[in-house]
């Protein structure tokens, strides 16, 4: 089991944003978390990636507990994430943004950086090459030297993707990767996620776009008001009466 979430709870004052959620992610799969707005999907992601501490419950990654660890420690262990509202570093080029992703896979510190030692120079070249490779994989190699935050929305998303991949994660968390994209771009993202998955990276994604989720996921977790109401394969979820109820409303007739 790559990721295990047990009885996870998160309260914000009186609001129970995530309530007793349990699920697990097998290595190699694409798992999706869906649910209506306000179901607690992003909160769940923030809990898993360490951006928020859980009120109670446990999260195990590769068999070790990660709840309560700061995000950078979780990232070092091989978990990368993207954001629903893209978070790139302003004032830095697309390439530099991707190079940040190599941080946890390189080691030059303050002193070696100041002295610009031969091995730090070699490491820096390797970081640059690997990052350029990833930009090429995402078809944005020509944008390497452009300031990242001045790019078009879809391109920024691609840079954020490349940055996450630069971390060589075992588990990639994608927070609404198709938000704000048109149908062609969404299809492109779907293809990309499958490619990444075939390279051996496990994917956990939160998404609103049903066609994307149903096409590419192996398993789906459905959240509503912070609670897990269903879990299964896309076919099972499509025929689950609870899920249909929360998405299409109750049958009054």
């Amino acid at each position, binding site marked *: 089991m790559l990721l295990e979430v047990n009885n996870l709870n998160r309260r914000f004052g009186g609001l129970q944003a995530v309530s007793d959620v349990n699920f697990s992610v097998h290595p190699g799969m694409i798992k999706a978390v869906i649910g209506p707005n306000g179901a607690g999907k992003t909160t769940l992601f923030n809990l898993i990636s*360490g951006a928020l501490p859980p009120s109670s419950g446990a999260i195990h990654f590769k068999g070790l507990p990660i709840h309560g660890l700061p995000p*950078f420690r979780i990232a070092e262990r091989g978990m990368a994430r993207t954001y629903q509202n893209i978070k790139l570093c302003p004032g830095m080029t697309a390439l530099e943004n991707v190079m*940040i992703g190599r941080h946890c896979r390189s080691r030059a510190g*303050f002193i070696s*950086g*100041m002295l*610009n030692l031969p091995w730090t120079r070699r490491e820096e070249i390797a970081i640059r090459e690997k990052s350029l490779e990833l930009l090429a994989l995402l078809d944005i190699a020509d944008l390497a030297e452009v300031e990242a935050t001045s790019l078009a929305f879809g391109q920024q998303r691609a840079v954020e993707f490349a940055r996450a991949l630069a971390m060589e994660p075992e588990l990639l968390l994608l927070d609404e990767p198709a938000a704000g994209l048109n149908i062609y771009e969404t299809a492109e993202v779907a293809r990309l996620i499958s490619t990444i998955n075939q390279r051996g990276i496990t994917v956990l994604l939160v998404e609103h776009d049903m066609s994307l989720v149903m096409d590419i996921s192996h398993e789906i977790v459905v959240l509503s008001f912070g609670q897990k109401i269903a879990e299964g394969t896309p076919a099972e979820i499509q025929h689950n009466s609870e899920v249909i109820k929360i998405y299409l409303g109750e049958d009054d007739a």
Partner: protein
Amino acid sequence: MKRHLPLALLVLTAIGVQQLTHATGTAFYLTPLTMAAYYSLVIVGLCLLMGYAGQISLGHAGFFAIGGYLSAMLTTRDLTPYQDNPVLVLLDKLGCTVTGQDMFGGAVLHVHPWAAFACAILITIAVAYGIGIPVLKLKGHYLAMATLGFGIIVYRLVLASPLFGEADGISEVPAFPLFPGLAVSGGFESRVSNYYLAWGMVACAMWLLANLIHSRVGRALRAIHGAEDATNAMGVNTARYKLNTFVISAVLAAVAGIFLTHYNGGIGPSEAGIMKSVRYVAIVAIGGMANLWGALVMGSLLNIMSLRGMFGSYDDAVFGLILIVIMLFAPRGLLGLSLPQGLKRLLKRGE
């Protein structure tokens, strides 16, 4: 290679200026030039902290003062009465003390400047960590207020403490023999060597800092400035990086304080004052924030002008005004300002 061009320019300019003063018989300019070099050390360190890591400090004069005052106190205070104290005996055995004569010919015992230097730097590091760990959890205005508070504490401590000479400060600080043949002192005969020493130190600091900002660490610092949460999620220990940067800039300020104090032969409470901290921040801003060379150029020019008394009694007012004007019209610094754009902004405001 590109990175070393400004460094070469700096060295050539320093040599050129010295030759010029020699040729024109204006060697008296070397004194403010040397002092400006030491202030520049504080400024480039603060530039790393503010411009790159994005953390403001309104207390850097405090670190300058900790360095300068500790070194001044340790090298001037007569330790003869404590001669039998085991700590002093140990220091004596280690060669960390010097004996001399006071003005009446009596024997006096001081701490050697190198030992004082080590002590001052260690205490600066300890204070910087002690202040930085809690304070760097704050952001924006809150961080500015907290560092301002630190600066005020240092200022009031040196002003109130007899150990640090209260309002008079500490004078008659001895020369600092760095190694045989070269001492930090304001003596007439060592003016040229001290000029080169000071600017050599600036060149070294610039080399180290320019390397740092182009390294993995520098990239992480700039990323922290832009998007701290995301940077943490990329595996950067953001708290430690901010703290280390804070300590590096504090140490640079303390080194500047120590050397300038020995060069001037004394230090007074104005060096610890809030207006000094504001001045450093203003100069980093006018240099363009994330622009080490801009900070160095503007820092040297403005400090030389200030030290030559060009701003008269309005010194502090000038730096306050600079801060307002830069923030309004050239937030990317004077060197980053393209005039048409600046005029455009000005006109837009008028509409």
